[in-house]
């Protein structure tokens, strides 16, 4: 009986009053070895992938990467000139220049075992300067934000978690909206968009930066389904996240230069 009472008190303390954050971050540090052990088979697979590979495979990969590098380098030259132009134009418009963001490469050491809860555990924590609310991206787009930090690792809530929402805008025309997680890894739902709003299938949604938490301009999702029912006040819009939420192993934590991060 006493135990049941204690448990109920714990649940209320955590859920209602958020009183257990420090306890949790301390316990999280203790839990790290367990994640580390559970991650071993995957790491072993990675290791054998890199060490036991045929010469032809490596040559092929090398060739492919060389080609890719050439293309990317060409683009980055173009990019720097475009950026300079952008700064000039922004100067003309009297608005502040967008500064480049710094990133920290982190590695995934665990995923939430509960299919309803879309969380990741990363191998970077407080000592690396990770903070609560920090955005996480991979090569293709925005993944989520940090919700818990302990000394050596951190926990990230993905944008598809049912408790997560993110302010976005349509890249094509700047229409603003809120993208909510649905609890399924491949879908976001754009809520409360009136039936006449100009959003089409295939539109790219990028972060709008309005929440003050995510920096502007990172790709979030691509609209996959638009359903306009005249009987409904709002259109039903679904989107597929751009980031490889269930595949990326190496991810990037973004540091923005904006000091007011904890919005």
């Amino acid at each position: 009986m006493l135990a049941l009472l204690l448990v109920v008190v714990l649940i209320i303390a955590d859920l209602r009053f958020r009183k257990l954050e420090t306890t949790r971050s301390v316990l999280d540090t203790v839990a790290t070895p367990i994640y580390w052990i559970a991650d071993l088979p995957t790491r072993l697979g990675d290791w054998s992938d890199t060490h036991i590979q045929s010469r032809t495979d490596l040559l092929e990969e090398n060739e492919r990467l060389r080609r890719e590098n050439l293309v990317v380098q060409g683009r980055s030259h173009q990019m720097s000139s475009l950026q300079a132009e952008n700064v000039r134009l922004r100067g003309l418009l009297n608005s502040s220049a967008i500064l480049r963001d710094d990133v920290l490469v982190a590695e995934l050491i665990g995923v939430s075992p509960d299919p309803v809860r879309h969380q990741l555990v990363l191998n970077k924590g407080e000592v690396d300067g990770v903070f609560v609310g920090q955005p996480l991206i991979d090569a293709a787009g925005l993944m989520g934000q940090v919700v818990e930090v302990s000394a050596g690792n951190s926990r990230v809530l993905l944008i598809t978690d049912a408790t997560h929402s993110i302010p976005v805008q349509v890249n094509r025309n700047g229409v603003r909206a809120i993208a909510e997680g649905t609890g399924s890894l491949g879908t976001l739902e754009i809520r409360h968009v009136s039936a006449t709003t100009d959003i089409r299938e295939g539109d790219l949604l990028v972060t709008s930066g309005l929440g003050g938490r995510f920096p502007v301009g990172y790709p979030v999702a691509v609209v996959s389904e638009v359903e306009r029912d005249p009987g409904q006040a709002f259109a039903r819009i679904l989107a597929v996240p751009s980031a490889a939420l269930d595949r990326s192993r190496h991810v990037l934590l973004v540091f923005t230069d904006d000091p007011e991060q904890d919005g």
Partner: protein
Amino acid sequence: MENEGARGYGVILLTFTLAYVLAVLPLPQWLMWARPEWVALALVYWTIALPHRVGIFTALLLGVGLDVLEGAVIGQNAFALVVVALLSLILYQRLRVYSLPQQSGVVFVLVGINQLVCQWVQNLEGAGAASLLFLMPALSSALLWPVALHVLRGLRRHYRVN
């Protein structure tokens, strides 16, 4: 005598740690929903085998640990496991004489209750499952009960934990 008791705790601790590792082991997406509740299985076994040593308090600690590991609301798994331990303590005399299929049936119900409690707390948080798939672990745990029983009983007899 004291030495033996300490060794016994080591074995119990080891099995629970193993259950933790299995509980967070990365699984492919389609298997995620059917992940057996390893920690609950180990808890049920030890409560039946050693009701004077493993019980509600162990369940409480074990549950808080699992909550931290899963990033769940602290108390969610603790609540569920305390209920499971409570029921196992009430049922242990009957469970000991049951045949394997009968035991599996009881484990199905126990893990099912575990899942229902978890689901209930998750709904408080606003992140409940949309379908009845969350009951799948009850089935997979019941199917794996004979395996868990043999491994744990083998360990207990080999190290003479009692």
